[in-house]
C-alpha cells in the first residue's frame, strides 16, 4: 500500500552456488571427522555422537531467532522491506532447526533418561520458542498486505524473542520449586574440537539456507512490485 516500488526491489544478486556446495561439503566433513575422532563415551557410548547434530542445531536455532529479532527491530526503525523479508527467511530456517533440535533431543533423551520428554527448563522453553515462531509464520501467511504483514510480524517477532528468556526463567523456577533433579552435563575436551567444527558447519549451512530463502523472497516481492507498477501503467522495465 504505502510502499512505493523503489530501487531496493531490483531482483537480488544471486547467491553463488559454490558457497552452498562448500557449506554442504564442509558439513559432511565435520560430521565424519567428529564421529571418527571421538571415542565412545564412558556413560553414553556412541550415543554421544548425537551431540554433533543436536547442539549445533540448537545453536543455529537461537542464532536464527537472533536474526529475526534484529531484522524486525531494523524493519520497524527504518521501514526497509528487505529487513522484513530477512526476518521471515530467518524465522523459517530457525523453525526448521528448532524442530530438528527438539526431535534430536528426544531421540537422545529416550535411551539416556528413559523418557522422550522431560519438563526441563531448556526443553520446555525450546518447545515454546518453536510454538511462538509457528505462530509468527502463520500470522505471515494470514495477512496479505505486505506493509501490514511486515509491521505485525515484526511486533510478534520482537515480543516472541523477549518472551523466550522469560519462559526459560519461569519454567526453571517451576521445576526448582517442585524439587526435581536436573541433568547436568559436562563436556570433556576431547569432544570439543568435533563440536566446534560442527557448530561452524551448521552455522554456514543455516546462513546459506537463509540467504537462499531471502533471495527467493526478494524475487517474489520484486515480481509483485513489478506487476503492481505495470497495473498502474508506469513500468517499462
Amino acid at each position, binding site marked *: *500500500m*504505502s510502499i512505493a516500488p523503489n530501487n531496493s526491489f531490483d531482483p537480488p544478486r544471486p547467491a553463488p552456488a559454490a558457497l552452498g556446495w562448500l557449506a554442504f561439503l564442509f558439513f559432511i566433513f565435520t560430521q565424519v571427522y567428529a564421529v571418527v575422532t571421538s571415542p565412545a563415551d564412558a556413560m553414553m557410548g556412541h550415543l554421544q555422537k548425537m551431540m554433533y547434530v543436536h547442539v549445533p542445531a540448537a545453536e543455529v536455532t537461537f542464532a536464527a531467532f537472533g536474526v529475526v529479532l534484529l531484522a524486525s527491530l531494523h524493519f*520497524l526503525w527504518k521501514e526497509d522491506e528487505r529487513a522484513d523479508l530477512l526476518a521471515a527467511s530467518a524465522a523459517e530456517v530457525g523453525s526448521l532447526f528448532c524442530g530438528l533440535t527438539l526431535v534430536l533431543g528426544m531421540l537422545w533423551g529416550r535411551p539416556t533418561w528413559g523418557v522422550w520428554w522431560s519438563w526441563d527448563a531448556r526443553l520446555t522453553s525450546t518447545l*515454546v520458542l518453536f*510454538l*511462538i515462531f*509457528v*505462530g*509468527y509464520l*502463520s*500470522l505471515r501467511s*494470514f*495477512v496479505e*498486505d505486505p*506493509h*501490514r504483514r511486515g*509491521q*505485525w510480524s*515484526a*511486533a*510478534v517477532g*520482537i*515480543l*516472541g524473542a*523477549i*518472551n523466550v528468556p*522469560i*519462559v526459560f*526463567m*519461569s*519454567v526453571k*523456577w*517451576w521445576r526448582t*520449586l517442585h524439587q526435581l533433579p536436573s541433568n547436568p552435563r559436562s563436556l570433556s575436551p576431547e569432544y570439543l574440537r568435533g563440536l566446534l567444527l560442527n557448530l561452524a558447519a551448521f552455522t554456514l549451512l543455516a546462513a546459506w539456507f537463509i540467504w537462499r530463502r531471502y533471495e527467493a523472497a526478494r524475487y517474489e516481492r520484486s515480481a509483485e512490485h513489478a506487476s503492481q507498477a505495470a497495473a498502474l501503467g508506469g513500468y517499462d522495465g
Partner: protein
Amino acid sequence: MAFRDDLRRTRAIVWKDLTTERRSKAGFNSVASLGVTILVLFGFALGPDAQMLRDAAAGALWLAVLFAGVLAFNRSYQVELDGGALEALLLYPGSRWAIFAGKLIANLIFVTLMLVIVVAVGIVLFQVRIPAQWPALLGIMMLGVVGIVSLGTFYAAMSSRSRAREVLLPLLLYPMLIPVLLAAMEATKAFLGGDLLNASGAWVQMLALFDVIFLVATFLAFEYVIEV
C-alpha cells in the same frame, strides 16, 4: 495538556465499550457461560475424587478464564470493525496508546467480571476450601488478569483484522502467556493449599514483574500494529 486529553480519550473508549456491552449483555453472558462450561468439562476430565479436584482447581480456573477470555478479546475489536468504527477511531487526533489503554481497561473490567463468576462456580464445583488469606488471593487474580488481558488485547488488534482470526489469536497468544499463566497458577495453587511452604511470594513477584514487562512491551508495540 496533551496527556490529559489522552486520558480523556481513554476514558471515553472504556465508557463506550462498556456501554455497548451493558446494553447488549449477549457478549458477556455467553462468554461467562462458556467459562463455566469449561470448568464443568475440567471437572469431568479430572474425575469425581474431591482431593484431585481441589489440587487441580487453580489450573482449571485459570484455563477456563483464558479460554473464555480469548473470545472477549477478538470481540472487542470485532464490534468496531463491523461498523467500520476502527478507522474513525484511528482518524481522531491524539495518541494511539489512548486507544490501546481504553480497550485494555474495558477488557480488564470485562474479564474481571467473568472471573468473579467463574471463580464462584469453581469454588463450588471443585470443592475448594477458601483460605484465611483470601484477600491476597484476589490480588493474585488481578495480577493474572492484567497479564492475560494486556497480551490478549494486543494480539487481538492483529488477529481480529486478519483472515482466520479464530485460530490465529490462540496460536499467537497461548505460547506468549505461558510465563504469566504458570506464575498465576502456581501462586493460586500455593494459596489455596494454605501456603505452607511460603512459595507463593516468589510467584507473586514474578507475576508482577511479567505484568510490567508485557504492559510496557505491548504499549510500545501497539503503535506499530494499529497504524496499518
